[in-house]
């Protein structure tokens, strides 16, 4: 229990700092000073002490419950990932539920912005296809869905990023889609204000930011673990910072894609990488 609690707090703090770094990098690329790196963490904490208002159009108790479901989902992600090194399938399930939460969070508020974001959340489920394909390819290569076994496989055969690089690219696409201000972040398009989060204020928004920080940490941890073999703490820290740098650069110089283009780009890239990896495995 203590191990879970420690890992959840680490995931929250590290994820918040990485998302703060992400904002800083984007700002520097755009020649702005940008906020301090701890700004994302301060924002998250600040929302817990802000006044919470509930819209009259909100669908209670779903409107509140969905936020806690989001937090629970990513705490489960921490337990299955860094704590127990369990099954990749459960992590895939966590990501699928996250998409459902994104969808329902928008629809439960009653806001037109939330509803538009909710519809886009259905479209953006396309990111799950490359994730699913990457998981399948990792299974085909290693013969296991268990993260612990995948780490052992890489310890004896080398990192999967070198043997199935296209699968790693597919997973990276998911990270890119999940990162803030991503070209694929159609649910949080600025024309929709804050998308599915628009009508969530106060501690509800605090929980959403808490969950997002944990999710960024978990996604990076899973990517580094299943594609870059057994890593030490320094390896994880450097890897997470490098990926945050890369996604920050890409997001700073890339405009948001139209929803249709976003979905088609991800599916096309995912399909190309899947076929390429299958050919590489067969050859």
């Amino acid at each position: 229990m203590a191990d879970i609690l420690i890992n959840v707090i680490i995931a929250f703090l590290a994820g918040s700092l990485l998302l703060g770094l992400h904002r800083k990098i984007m700002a520097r690329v755009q020649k702005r000073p940008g906020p301090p790196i701890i700004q994302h963490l301060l924002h998250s904490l600040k929302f817990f002490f802000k006044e919470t208002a509930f819209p009259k159009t909100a669908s209670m108790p779903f409107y509140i419950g969905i936020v806690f479901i989001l937090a629970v989902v990513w705490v489960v992600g921490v337990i299955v990932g860094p704590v127990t090194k369990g099954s990749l399938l459960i992590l895939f399930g966590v990501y699928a539920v996250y998409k459902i939460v994104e969808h329902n969070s928008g629809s439960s508020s009653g806001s037109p912005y939330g509803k538009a974001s909710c519809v886009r959340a259905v479209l953006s489920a396309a990111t799950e296809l490359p994730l699913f394909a990457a998981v399948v390819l990792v299974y085909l290569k290693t013969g296991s869905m268990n993260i612990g076994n995948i780490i052992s496989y890489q310890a004896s055969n080398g990192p999967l990023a070198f043997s199935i690089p296209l699968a790693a690219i597919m997973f990276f696409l998911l990270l890119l889609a999940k990162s803030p201000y991503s070209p694929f972040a159609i649910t949080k398009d600025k024309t929709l204000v804050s998308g599915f989060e628009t009508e969530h204020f106060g501690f509800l928004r605090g929980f959403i930011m808490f969950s997002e920080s944990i999710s960024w940490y978990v996604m990076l941890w899973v990517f580094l673990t299943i594609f870059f073999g057994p890593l030490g703490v320094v390896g994880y820290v450097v890897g997470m910072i490098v990926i945050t740098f890369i996604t920050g650069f890409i997001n700073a110089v890339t405009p948001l894609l139209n929803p249709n283009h976003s979905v088609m780009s991800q599916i096309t890239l995912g399909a190309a990488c899947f076929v390429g990896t299958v050919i590489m495995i067969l050859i």
Partner: protein
Amino acid sequence: MLNYLIYLLTFVIGSIAGLVYSYKLHGEPFVADSSLNILYCIISVVGWVLAFNSSNMLLGGIGFLLAGFVMGGRPGYGRKETAIGIVIAIIVYLVLHFMVSV
């Protein structure tokens, strides 16, 4: 894992303290003083060297606290000092490991 949690917490506490102190020092709406702050530089070097090279949880925690204090300053302040601190800490780390392996 508890030691990593303590490192993270001390870094965050140091960053918050650094941000508050930096705003007290510099209330201007723009970066008014971009020169190298020697005191900050020393704090940064000590902090990063301790953070990178100390296997002791207490010393490592103090290191991250000091490193966070300088790095967490108001945007535009503490950047050069942090860069110098990290570079020197990496050099110290490499020298120590080279000496141990030789």
